[in-house]
């Protein structure tokens, strides 16, 4: 064929050219993976990891997540727009395994939503009030901000933002959600990423310390940086040299980004003409997140520094004027900027990133529930879509109740640390990696007829990538089980590890019980999955 001859001929037909833009899928993955929240986590929990290198930790986390990103991209290319891992695992392994993974993932998303709601209250609204007081707007703002960090404040604020998220779907539907999201995304990028990088670039540490003292003085404490150091030292802080062990443990924090950066399977093209959308958007999002962190980490350490962050983690916040709790990075950036306007942009951008995640999660889980209901595993009502709002309102309502319960748990108990849910969220990823590895053997026709029919060292390409993903996800699980800061270490939190396994096994039991009940009703659930002969 001459180089300029067409490789194929297409005709006039619907849907032929419809494919999401790679750029959009990239941003979707980046927003979903919560770079801002995870960055806040790392510095808030820095005292757990003295001597850890943030740069090295996130690079290791990215390396562990990269094969999984490639695998998800390939599986999405093979089975686009069909329900993500629920379908991958149901087809490659068994429907009960597919359901268990998806149910488990949804369960732990419902749990982790409590992190978002309480962080919105504490590090969003609370931080904003404190910032206004810190810049001299009056103690009334401090009382206002502090209320959000009380148990009642966390729960009430979390519940209100959840109700508002659900109301978006109930009253404005998916269309309103998209409109809101469009605005929010820009504000998030500006406030949570661009402003912190610029402030970090153009502000010195000494200038920050001076601003910190002025800020704390307005909160009622003079010479706060010295008092911070004294309190931290009293509670065990000492400057730490680089520690590879701590760096490796700290990977568990950054896994919050790189374990969940391939959620753009909605952006499936209708014809597999080109591989670029998924291949570029999922592994590409890993690289983009690395780039963002490569900008955030050095600029943050330039202006705030590791030792200052460690001290914030060790010290009693009341000792240096921050009685409601240590500040997260947006508030520190606000302080460094010395400007309430720039500070407001940083805190609002960060908060909006968290707020946007709530309806996104409600949507994602309700979509999973829809799929279970569609296959008769769950009651039919869960798949009801309100024609006016185009929203699965009953599924969203169920998720809303679970999310409020999660907010209550995070507000009133210490059952879960912030990243405890990570193990529960990662286990289904490992199952998907196993399913991808076996897919060329379980459904050879599907793989052979795809763009991924090639072999590497005599093994199917998908098996090789799946094997690497097993190693990456497996290593991440290993770190989560090892790191005491993860909240799911085998040594300190064996009960929570059992809970993670228990939820998965319970979900498998639910599938089999549901199948038996449907059989009594005269419905053969197996028909929903049984492949017809193609001969």
């Amino acid at each position, binding site marked *: *064929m001459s180089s300029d001859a067409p*490789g194929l*001929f297409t005709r006039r037909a619907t849907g032929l050219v419809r494919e999401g833009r790679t750029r*959009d899928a990239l941003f979707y993955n980046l927003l979903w993976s919560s770079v801002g929240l995870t960055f806040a986590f790392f510095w808030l929990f820095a005292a757990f990891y003295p001597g850890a290198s943030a740069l090295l930790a996130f690079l290791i986390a990215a390396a562990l997540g990269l094969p999984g990103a490639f695998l998800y991209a390939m599986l999405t290319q093979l089975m686009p727009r069909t329900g993500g891992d629920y379908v991958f695992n149901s087809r490659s392994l068994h429907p009960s395994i597919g359901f268990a993974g998806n149910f488990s993932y949804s369960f732990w998303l419902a749990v982790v939503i409590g992190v978002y709601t309480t962080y919105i209250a504490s590090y969003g609204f609370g931080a904003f009030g404190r910032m206004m007081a810190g810049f001299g707007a009056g103690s009334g703002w401090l009382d206002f901000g502090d209320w959000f960090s009380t148990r009642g404040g966390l729960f009430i604020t979390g519940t209100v933002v959840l109700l508002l998220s659900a109301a978006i779907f109930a009253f404005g539907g998916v269309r309103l959600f998209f409109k809101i999201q469009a605005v929010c995304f820009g504000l998030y990028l500006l406030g949570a990423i661009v402003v912190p990088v610029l402030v970090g670039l153009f502000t010195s540490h000494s200038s920050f310390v001076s601003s910190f003292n002025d800020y704390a003085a307005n909160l009622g404490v003079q010479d706060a940086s010295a008092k911070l150091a004294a309190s931290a030292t009293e509670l065990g802080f000492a400057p730490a040299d680089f520690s590879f062990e701590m760096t490796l443990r700290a990977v568990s924090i950054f896994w919050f980004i790189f374990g969940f950066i391939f959620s753009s399977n909605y952006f499936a093209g209708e014809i597999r003409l080109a591989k670029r959308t998924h291949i570029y958007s999922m592994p590409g999002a890993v690289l983009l997140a690395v780039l963002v962190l490569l900008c955030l980490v050095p600029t943050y350490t330039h202006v705030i520094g590791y030792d200052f962050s460690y001290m914030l983690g060790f010290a009693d916040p009341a000792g240096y004027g921050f009685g409601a709790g240590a500040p997260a990075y947006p508030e520190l950036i606000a302080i460094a900027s010395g400007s309430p306007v720039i500070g407001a942009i940083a805190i609002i951008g960060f908060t909006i990133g968290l707020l946007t995640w709530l309806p996104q999660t409600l949507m994602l889980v309700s979509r999973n529930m829809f799929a279970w209901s569609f296959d008769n595993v769950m009651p039919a009502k869960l798949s009801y879509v309100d024609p006016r709002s185009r929203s699965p309102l009953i599924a969203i309502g169920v998720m809303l109740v679970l999310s409020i319960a999660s907010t209550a748990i995070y507000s009133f108990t210490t059952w879960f640390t912030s990243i405890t849910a990570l193990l529960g969220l990662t286990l289904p990823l490992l199952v998907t990696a196993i399913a991808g590895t076996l897919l060329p053997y379980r459904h050879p026709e599907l793989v052979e007829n795809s763009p991924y029919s090639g072999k590497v060292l005599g093994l199917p390409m998908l098996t090789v990538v799946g094997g690497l993903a097993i190693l990456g996800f497996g290593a991440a699980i290993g770190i989560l089980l090892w790191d005491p800061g993860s909240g799911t270490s085998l040594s300190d939190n064996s009960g929570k590890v059992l809970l993670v396994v228990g939820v998965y096994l319970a979900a498998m039991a639910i599938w089999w019980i549901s199948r038996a009940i449907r059989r009594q009703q005269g419905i053969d659930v197996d028909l929903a999955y049984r492949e017809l002969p193609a001969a």
Partner: protein
Amino acid sequence: MGLFGKKKEGGGSNAAARMYYASDIHGSAVLWRKFLNAAGAYRAGVLVMGGDVTGKVVVPLVEQADGFHVDLFGQRTVVSGDAVEEMEHKIRNNGMYPHRMSAEEVSRVAGLTEEQREEWFAEVMRRTFDGWLALADERLAADTRCFVMPGNDDPAGVDDAIEAATKVEACDGRVVAFGDWTMISLGYANRTPFDSPRELTEEQIYERVSALADEVGDMSRCIFNLHVPPYDSTLDTAPALDENLAVVMSGSAPKLIGVGSTAVRELIERYQPLLSLHGHVHESPGATRIGRTLAINPGSDYHTGRIAGVLLQLKGDTVRHQFVTG
């Protein structure tokens, strides 16, 4: 909406039938074979294919001295010997048409006007579709009824091929009966941004279907088999497209809109048939009630090698349904 949902009250004959409906297989040979095999696998006496049976892409296998040059999924390969048929098989199973051509013929087709190329496409597709119909003659049992209609993406020759088939029955634009039930069908869609071969205005859709519906006396045992789903029904949700046919994004996600037919919705609301079956919008599977009518779109995942369909248990003026992916 229930999968095998609640039985409706009703009387009349106790006659029963099991029906399998699928749509939008878009040239996938695997899915056509599965569709035919559904009769035996699901013990369905009636099969209905709701349109868009032909593919959208022809992949040339360009004959050169060293073999056939093929560009598939953006990868150029050279195949010869047995590998040629394997490649053709792979292309067919992806819903595309392999076509052995010389380099000169490729250049000639590339130089055709759009209308001329559509005719060329129709000829290539017709050859494959004739083979499918011959396979149906071989496979289908004598007591199985199999109705196939073209959809908005299918070129004109498809009708003639179905009319000429032995076992497969044409149903587009007419009233057909099986058992105690009647079915009226229309494969045309409302206007799309793609200017596909079979599109009508909403008024034309309304006129054509209402003329058929007026022939049917008992709507309680009537099935609408209309390719395009009713507007704003949750069965018609698709991403909005801009003037370049690219997905319109809102923030970081596609903007979703209803793309169904307002005429179809009005027709269902007016006539209230027992059941209304639809395809066309692949990404919007589901079932919903419009008045007493159960409206269903099983969706389509044709490029995955799995056929999305729905099993329907008809009994008198009641119907139960279960989505199946085979």
